[in-house]
Each structure stands twice: as C-alpha cells, then as structure tokens.
C-alpha cells in the first residue's frame, strides 16, 4: 500500500504553490491559536482545562505539514538525471523544490510545536 502511495505521490508535481503549504499551515495555526485564546478569554474569562478544540486544530496543522513533508520526501528522491542534481532539468527542479518543501516542513513542525507548548503550561488568561 505504501508503495502505491509513493507512486501516487510521484505522480503529483511539486510547484511553488505546494512549497508554501507547510509554512502556510504554520501561519494558519499561529493565527488560530491567537484567535482561540482571545475568543475563549473574552467569552469565559478563563482557559479550559482540556482545550479539545485547540489540540484538534494543532493536530490538524501538524497532519497537513507532516503529509506535505512526506510527499516532499518521496518526491525529493525521484529517480531521473544523474547526480549532483543541480542542472536545469525538470527532474532536478522537482527534486530541488521537493527538498526545499521538506526542510520547510521540518521548520514548520517546530514552529507549530513551539506555538502550542504554552497551552500546556498556562492555565488562565492573565
């Protein structure tokens, strides 16, 4: 099954648009976190003990970022031209874009985790 998924991924084509999926996920999660905290505090005046919506949103953001990172990881290994993969060919361009997406996905995972960590520790709106 994984093998078929890999083939599916290879059929997809990374572009500059897919490159910005991980950082966009990070940005959306950041905005979501602030909105969530602001709305909660404005409505109830305090945090909840088990912020299910927040962890749901965080999981969704991580899922999107990890999925796009995985796709990028597969595509960065697309067989084709010879190493060192730095020529101006379609295959090398794909590998480059995919690798850049993979690195951005790594950074975005760290960003989302760092944004979410305070919720574990802060317990009120002050």
């Amino acid at each position, binding site marked *: 099954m994984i093998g078929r998924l890999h083939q599916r991924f290879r059929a997809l084509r990374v572009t500059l648009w897919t490159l910005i999926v991980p950082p966009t996920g990070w940005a959306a999660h950041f905005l979501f976190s602030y909105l969530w905290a602001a709305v909660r505090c404005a409505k109830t005046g305090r945090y909840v003990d088990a912020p299910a919506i927040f962890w749901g949103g965080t999981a969704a953001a991580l899922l999107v970022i990890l999925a796009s990172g995985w796709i990028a990881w597969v595509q960065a290994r697309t067989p084709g031209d010879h190493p060192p993969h730095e020529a101006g060919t379609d295959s090398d361009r794909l590998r480059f874009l995919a690798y850049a997406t993979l690195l951005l996905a790594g950074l975005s995972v760290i960003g989302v985790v760092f944004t979410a960590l305070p919720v574990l*520790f802060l*317990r009120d709106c002050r």
Partner: protein
Amino acid sequence: MRAGTSRRGRLAIVLGTMALGGCNHHQSVFAAFGEEAAGINYITLVMVAGGMIVAAGVAGLMIWAVRARPGALSLRGGERLILIAGGLIPALVLAALLVFSLPYMRPRGVAPADLRIDVTGEQFWWRVAYRPSDGTAVVSANEIRIPVGRTVLFRLAGGDVVHSFWIPGLAGKMDMIPGRTNDLPVRATRAGRFRGQCTEFCGLSHALMAFDVVAMPAEAFDRWLAAQRRPAVASADPGAALFLRHGCGGCHAIRGTAATGTIGPDFTHLAQRATIGAGTLPNNEAARLRFLREPAAVKPGARMPAYPQLPETEARAIARYLGTLQ
C-alpha cells in the same frame, strides 16, 4: 598623564561604575525581595548561561570549520553535521529552554481572602487603595506597603494615559491601561524599603513618577493598615484652616476634615511617607513648601496649579501642617 595610564583609568572608571551597579539594593532586579522577581532572576541566569554555552559551541564549530582542511568531511558527513548541529540540536535546546521557562509565566493563584491593592497611574503619581477581604477601602497615594509572606494582588488601571507599574525587586512590570484592569499577584519574601517606577512614557514627568515600597512583617502590616483606616487627628494648627481656605481640599482629601477632593493624592497620613511628589523630593517642610509654590518647577507637566501668590507665612503654615498628618 600618559595615554596608556588614562586609557587604563577610563577602563577602571567604566568597570568600577558597572560594579557599583551591583550595590543598588533599592531598585534592582538583582536585589529581589519577592518570589516573582527571584524567579525572573533565576530564569535570566539560566537563559544567559544557556546562551553562552550555545555561543561558545557555535564559535568552536566556526573555528574548527575555518581551520579544517578541504575534504575533512565527506558529503554525507557534512550533510549529517548540518542536520544534527544545525537542525536537531538547536530545536531541542530551544524546546528545553522554552519548557523550562514557561512555568514561570503562570501567575500566582489568588484566594478571595488575599489583600487586594488597587493602584491607578495618574500624571504623575499613584492612586492607591488597600482593599482587605472585608471590603472596605483604605485610600493612600505614592507609597505602597505590603506584608511579607502573604499573597497580594495588585489590580492596576490607568487613570488618564498608559502608565506601567514596575517594582523591579518584587515582580515583572505590568501596564496600566485606561479602561481596563490588569492583575499582578505578588508575594514579598523579605522586609525592607524599596522603590518602584513608572516604565511607560506617560508625559513630561514620566521619569519623576516613582514610589516607595515598604515590605513589612505581616503583623506589623496589619497594625499599620488598621491605623491607616483612622481619619486624621483633628488639628488646631493654623495650617489646617489655611489648607481649607485656599481650596487645597478641592483636590486633596484629608479624611476627618472638610477636605474631600479626589483629583490629587490623598494626604490623610502624609507625614508617614518618606517622599513627596511621587518619589521626587524628601518629605520635609522645605520640600513641601517648594512643591506647593511651584509644582511644575519640581515636576514639569504636573497638573497641580502653582501658588506663588500665597503669602509666605501662610504657605509655610500649610507645609508645616502637612508634616503633622501622622
């Protein structure tokens, strides 16, 4: 003087001045007298030490990279180095420092029985109201007393513009914003006389907007607060009548007299305070006289009008009378 000596002299002055900064036990983050400030102190120490270790590691790597012969690393080895030293380790170290620091952001819990002190920032002084759990308010100004070993909740507001409330030895600073209240729970750990300061530019005399903070043993504080509730002792001092006749009571309250103004600081127990003008002048007769004559000369932009037209004997009598308000 030879150039070398003077350079050494200058260096000595710079280093000496920096070292003298450590002698400040009056208003300093490094002279903590509260649990919050001690926490901030500790977290700063750990962060600075952590930052220095990271900086030393990076510098070491750079020296190694500059000195290494070409080909010292294979392609794969170099990529692995970047991944581990450039990606994984920084992410883990930063995560560890973040997790270490986050619990310090949790504010102290406050019980309904804890003493609340409402402090309102005004241009350029501090309106203070002690609110013990029995609900009655004890109004004061420009000096804050707190009991050692008990949780105190400062409820902060801005009266006119944005101010910021900071007692460096007690806790972090917090803004005072017109139209909203900010809560700052603290607990003092040792008695003494300290100083706080406005830390948000609020006008011409922003730098002269300070206050004394007196941390007292809890029993002594209770006695003091009970004494503060009492109105001023009725006085036959000629200054008392002059204070009212010249309209001072329109802005300043002295409980127990006809002076009930709330525009300026409360004077009921003024003589107990160490300073006047919100930490600007010592609380003595000459200073009070000077402030009464021309407040703006002491504190530019102060809202209080000047009274140069008062006869000298009357102004002096008022200044003396204010010194009797124990």
